């Protein structure tokens, strides 16, 4: 991806030329057009066949739009509801009400920080038990008032730490999952960046699961997998490929329902366009879900998750040792 910076530099240069063109009255438009054509060509070449590891880097790109950016661009009037009513207010997992095309929805949103200051506040986008408890509260609110629920997923995973374990972070994830499993309103989850393990899934058990084109969703970070399975941290690239964590692969595996396209080079190249695509897709999916009777929606959600898994009846030859006999 070091090429990306070169292309960004070229883009800046073209912009400088364009300003020169305007100010000095020198006619560079022909040259500029050629340069732009070249740039477009290079970009296409660069981004057309991103490998999985490059996608991982795009999904984590520091310039990538975060949840609050989409809240601004896709929804109106985010009315944040803070606090878990128990011990705190997690700033890495936000909850609140907002409007989508004028209709009220409940939002769950995982938010990373951009600055050191922000990341300190938001724990690098890693939710703590306070966040998962708040999620559960918001899910229940959605259920109580019939608001559709939309999750924006973007986290490396739940925050690992003593305090999190002391507050039983695993159980808070389980309870958020349980709330999502049972809430009787349409639910849509979108992975907008990084979908990291249980901390992401906690708000991702939805009727419809979408991914932005360059988002990833994985049981473990490639780095973690490399360290545990390859016993070699530098194998993250291999792990990224093996884990099949990109949107296209997960769509192929039937584990997500749709992909929201991003501009060439990633969402950060044109956040507004990305947001617009996301908004259209969210609105369309919600309409579909709301057109489905509640009972049928519940049955479909159940069937969707009940059937996840790939296995076959073992042929008699495998395993070589037969299974335990009946006792």
């Amino acid at each position, binding site marked *: 991806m070091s090429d990306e910076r070169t292309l960004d530099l070229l883009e800046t240069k073209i912009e400088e030329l364009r300003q020169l063109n305007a100010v000095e009255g020198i006619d560079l438009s022909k040259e500029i057009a050629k340069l732009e054509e070249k740039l477009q060509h290079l970009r296409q070449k660069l981004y057309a066949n991103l490998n999985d590891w490059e996608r991982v880097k795009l999904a984590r790109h520091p310039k990538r739009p975060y949840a609050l950016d989409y809240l601004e661009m896709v929804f109106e009037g985010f009315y944040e509801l803070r606090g878990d009513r128990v011990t705190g207010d997690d700033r890495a997992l936000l909850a609140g009400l907002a409007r989508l095309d004028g209709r009220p929805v409940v939002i769950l949103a995982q938010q990373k920080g951009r600055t050191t200051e922000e990341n300190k506040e938001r724990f690098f986008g890693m939710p703590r038990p306070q966040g998962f408890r708040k999620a559960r509260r918001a899910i229940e609110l959605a259920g109580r008032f019939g608001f559709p629920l939309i999750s924006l997923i973007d986290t490396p995973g739940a925050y690992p730490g003593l305090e999190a374990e002391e507050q039983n972070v695993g159980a808070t994830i389980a309870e958020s999952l349980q709330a999502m499993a049972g809430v009787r309103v349409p639910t849509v989850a979108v992975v907008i960046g990084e979908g990291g393990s249980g901390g992401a899934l906690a708000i991702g058990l939805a009727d419809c699961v979408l991914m932005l084109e360059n988002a990833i969703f994985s049981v473990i970070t490639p780095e973690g997998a490399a360290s545990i399975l390859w016993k070699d941290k530098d*194998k993250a690239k291999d792990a990224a490929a093996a884990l099949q964590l990109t949107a296209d692969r*997960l769509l192929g*595996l039937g584990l997500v329902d749709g992909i929201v396209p991003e501009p060439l080079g990633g969402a950060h190249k044109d956040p507004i366009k990305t947001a617009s695509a996301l908004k259209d897709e969210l609105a369309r999916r919600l309409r579909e879900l709301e057109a489905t009777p509640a009972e049928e929606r519940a049955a479909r959600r159940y069937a969707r998750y009940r059937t996840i898994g790939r296995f076959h009846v073992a042929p008699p030859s495998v395993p070589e040792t037969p299974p335990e006999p*009946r006792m």
Partner: protein
Amino acid sequence: MSLFKERQYLRIRVDREADDSLWMKCKSCGELVFKRRVRENNNVCPNCGEYFFLTAQERIDSLVDPGSFENLTEPIVTDDPLGFADNQPYTQRLREAQEKTSLLDAIVIGRGTIQSLPVVLGVMDFRFIGGSMGSVMGEHICRAMEAAIAERRAFVLVSSSGGARIQEGMFSLLQMAKTVIVRRRLAEAGLPFISVMTYPTSGGVQASIASLGDILIAEKGALIGFAGRRVIQQTISQDLPEHFQTETFALERGQIDRVVRREELREELALALGFFVGAR
């Protein structure tokens, strides 16, 4: 997220009577102990009380009334849906685990009685790739709950798992959602679920089905937590108390209902189950 190594266990081969010796050396106290006595003692060292590892079948034998267990574990195996390979193909790792354990995956389910009280039981086997949960374990847990619903029995799950089975990628992570959504059905049917947490109950298993019991019982010596000690220390270099994620740590922090010694677990389950017989 198989972060717990088998080497943390004191393994004893007690599953074959034909072993070359009748005696074994306890790795905790160093004493030579009679294997048969260890086995009869629920794999607890008769000298120092150290808990040795129980296979799923040994655990089942230690809990259910003799002769009451009917194995409901259908012979299904994972498709290896990602065609996963690290330094070793997943299929090979599976084959080795299958050969080692005589199981097709890391869980055994079945129906039985515990002091005459009918249950459907699921027991994980840590020997099988760290008791990790992939498509097959998730499926068996769901089928066990469905059997409990169909037969109006209580569901007992004995967890021993490092978490999700990394080699099945998102299929494995999503078993958390799958087991949770079926667990709701069990609750809607008004049937009790007793979750027994042993060493280790962690990662995606702890963050889903294992934490959602109506009653949570930890075996003495259990490890209960989401992120492992190593992960926390590597990620944020935090000092952790010595009893971090032990059953005492969990009890003090309100995470579990009870702590029980292995030899009392059968009695304990009977006590708990007894309240629910005929309830509703």
